C-alpha cells in the first residue's frame, strides 16, 4: 500500500506545515504585527492571557525560538488556542467550535451537490461532444468558473433577498434557529439556500470542465470502442465504461478543487453574514484578532486535509490499479 502510505505522509506533513506557518508568520514579518495587536488590547486582557499570547506570537519574550516552538506545539496539541480578542472573554476554541458546524454543513452539502451536478453535466456534454449542447455548456461553465464567488453572492442576495424577498437577507440566524424544532430547522434551511446555491452554481462550472475533458479523452480509448463492439447499450457504455474511468482523475484533482471551493465559500459566508468560519475569519481580520485568525486557518486546513484524504481513499477503492501496485 505504497500509495496509501504516501498519502498519510502528505497528510501529516501538511498538517505540520499548516501549524508551523501559524508559528512562523508573525515572527517573520518585519516589526511583528502581533505587537501592535497586543498593544491595542493592553489592559483589556488579563495578565495571564497576555502572557500566553506573548509566547504564541513571540512578542517580548526571552525564550529561544525552539523553546517557543515547543511551547506552541504544547498549546496546539492540548487544544489551547488562546483567547479571542474580538469576542473576549470567549476562547478561540469556543468560537471556532461554534462556527465550524455551520461551515461544514454549508460547504459540505453544496460541494457534494456541485460535484454531482458538475460531473453529470460534464459526462453529458462529453458524450455529445461537438454538439450544440456541448458548444453552449463550455463557455457557460468557463464563465461560471471565472465569476468571483462573493460578487455572484452579492447579486443573488440583492435579487432574491432584497428585491424579491424570497429569502432572509442574512444575519439573525443564531437567534432564529435557537427557536428549535421545525421552526428552527426551517430558519436554518431558509438561511442556507442562497449561500448554498451560490457555492453550488459557481463551483459546478469547474467540475463540468474537468469532467468533460477527462471524459472526451476516455471516449477515445479502445475499451470504449470495444464496449460498443460488444453491443452494450449506450447507457452502459457511457457510465460503466467511459464515465467510471473518466471520474478517476477528479479524485486526484480534488485537492485543488476543494481548496478553491472552500476559499470561495468563505467569501460567500461573509456576503450572507452566515455564521460560519468564513464570517468569523472576516471579523478576525477586521479586528486584527490574530489568535482567532490562526485557529480558523488551522481548522480549515485540517478540514480540507481530511476531505482530501477521503478523496484519496475513494480513489483507492475505485481504481484497482492503484490498489495493487501503488502509484506516487
Amino acid at each position, binding site marked *: 500500500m505504497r500509495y496509501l502510505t504516501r498519502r498519510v505522509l502528505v497528510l501529516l506533513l501538511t498538517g505540520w506545515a499548516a501549524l508551523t506557518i501559524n508559528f512562523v508568520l508573525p515572527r517573520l514579518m518585519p516589526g511583528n504585527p502581533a505587537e501592535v495587536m497586543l498593544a491595542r488590547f493592553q489592559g483589556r486582557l488579563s495578565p495571564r492571557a497576555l502572557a500566553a499570547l506573548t509566547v504564541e506570537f513571540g512578542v517580548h519574550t526571552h525564550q529561544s525560538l525552539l523553546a517557543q516552538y515547543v511551547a506552541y506545539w504544547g498549546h496546539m496539541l492540548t487544544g489551547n488556542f488562546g483567547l479571542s480578542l474580538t469576542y473576549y472573554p470567549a476562547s478561540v476554541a469556543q468560537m471556532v467550535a461554534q462556527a465550524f458546524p455551520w461551515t461544514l454543513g454549508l460547504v459540505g452539502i453544496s460541494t457534494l451537490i456541485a460535484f454531482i451536478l458538475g460531473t453529470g453535466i460534464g459526462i453529458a456534454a462529453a458524450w455529445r461532444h*461537438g454538439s450544440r449542447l456541448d458548444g453552449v455548456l463550455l463557455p457557460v461553465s468557463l464563465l461560471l468558473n471565472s465569476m468571483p464567488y462573493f460578487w455572484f453572492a452579492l447579486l443573488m442576495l440583492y435579487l432574491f433577498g432584497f428585491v424579491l424577498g424570497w429569502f432572509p437577507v442574512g444575519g439573525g440566524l443564531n437567534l432564529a434557529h435557537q427557536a428549535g424544532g421545525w421552526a428552527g430547522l426551517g430558519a436554518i434551511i431558509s438561511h442556507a439556500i442562497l449561500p448554498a446555491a451560490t457555492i453550488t452554481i459557481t463551483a459546478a462550472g469547474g467540475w463540468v470542465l474537468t469532467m468533460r475533458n477527462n471524459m472526451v479523452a476516455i471516449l*477515445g*480509448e*479502445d*475499451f470504449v*470502442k*470495444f*464496449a*460498443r*463492439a*460488444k*453491443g*452494450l*447499450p*449506450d447507457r*452502459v457504455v457511457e457510465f*460503466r*465504461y467511459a464515465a*467510471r*474511468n473518466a471520474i*478517476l482523475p477528479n479524485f486526484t484533482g480534488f485537492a485543488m478543487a476543494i481548496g478553491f471551493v472552500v476559499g470561495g465559500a468563505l467569501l460567500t459566508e461573509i456576503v450572507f453574514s452566515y455564521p460560519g468560519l468564513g464570517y468569523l475569519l472576516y471579523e478576525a481580520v477586521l479586528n486584527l484578532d490574530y489568535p482567532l485568525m490562526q485557529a480558523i486557518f488551522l481548522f480549515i486546513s485540517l478540514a480540507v486535509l481530511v476531505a482530501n484524504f477521503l478523496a484519496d481513499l475513494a480513489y483507492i477503492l*475505485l*481504481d*484497482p*490499479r492503484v490498489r*495493487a*501496485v501503488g502509484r506516487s
Partner: protein
Amino acid sequence: MSLLLEIAGLTVGYGAGPTAVLAVQDVDLAVHTGEVVGIAGESGCGKSTLALAATGLLDPPGRVLQGGVRYAGQDLLRLPPAALRHVRLRQIAMVFQASMNVLNPVLRIRDQFLDAMQAHGITSRREAVERTQAVFELVKVPARFLDAYPHQLSGGMRQRTVIALSLVLEPRLIFMDEPTTALDVVVQRAILQSVNDLRVQRDFAVVFITHDLSLLIEIADRIAIMYAGYLVEEASGPELYQQPLHPYTQALMQAFPPLGAVRSRLQGIPGQPPDLRQLPPGCPFAARCGKVRQGTCDTVRPAMTIVTPGHRVACHLYPVSTEGGKQA
C-alpha cells in the same frame, strides 16, 4: 458456403466536404460462411477503418460516404441503433489489437463478460458464468483469471481473453484487427492455433486484418490487399502466394517472406505511401512502383480486372476485361 457479409462500393472519409480525407475508396469484398478472409496492407492503408466501417463502429469524424454493407440480407449501416447493437457480438464480433486498453481497466474480467451477455439477453447469472468458463477453457486461460483486473494479465492472456469474449455468444463472423501484433512469436503462434481449432469446431468466418502478409498466406482462404484506401488485389491464399500480380503485392511478399521460406534478404518497399489528402490522379502506387508506365499509371486510375476466376487486380499491367471487376 453461402454469402455472409457483402461490402459493396464502400467509401469512408474522415471529415466532411472538400477537405475530407478518403481512407477507404470504393471497396468490394465478400465473406462467406466459415471462411477466413485476410486483409493486408501497410499501416494507414485503410484496413482498420474498413473493419470499423463495416461493423458500424466508426467514430466521427469518420463517415461512410458511399456504399453499403449487407449482412444476412440486412443493410447493416442503415439498421436502427438498437438492432445494430443486437447484431454486434451475437452475430459479428470484433477483436482489437492486443493493446493495454481494450478491456475496461476498472472492472473485473468476469464483469466485462457478464455485461456483454446481459446486453444480449442472458440474464441468468449461472448461465453467463458457465458460458464464460467454457470459452476460457477454449482459449486456454485459467478460470481464476475471471476475478482478475485487466492490468493483472499478461499481454498474451489479455489477448486470449478478448478472443474468448468474442466467442462467448457464438457469432458467425469475427473481425480480427491485428490480434497478435503486439505479442511475441511463440504466443502469437499459440493463439492463432487456438483460433483455427475453434473455427473448425464452431464454424465461424474470420476477417483477419494484418500488415503481415506471410501470416495470412498460412491461415487465410482468401486474401485482399489494400493500398492507400483501395483494394488492389484479391485472390485465394495459395494463388496469391504463387502468383502475386500487383507490384505492390509482390513487394509486400518480399517484405514478409513466409515463415518456412528460405530467408533471402528482406526487402523493404522503397518510398512512402502517398498522402491521402492529396492522392495523385493515377494509380496510388505509381510513385513507388518498379514497373510504372509513364503516361498511363500516373494519370489513369486502374480499374479492377478479373484475371482468372477468383483472382482480381487493379493494375494497368493487366488489361481490363469486359466484366467491370465486381466480384461474382
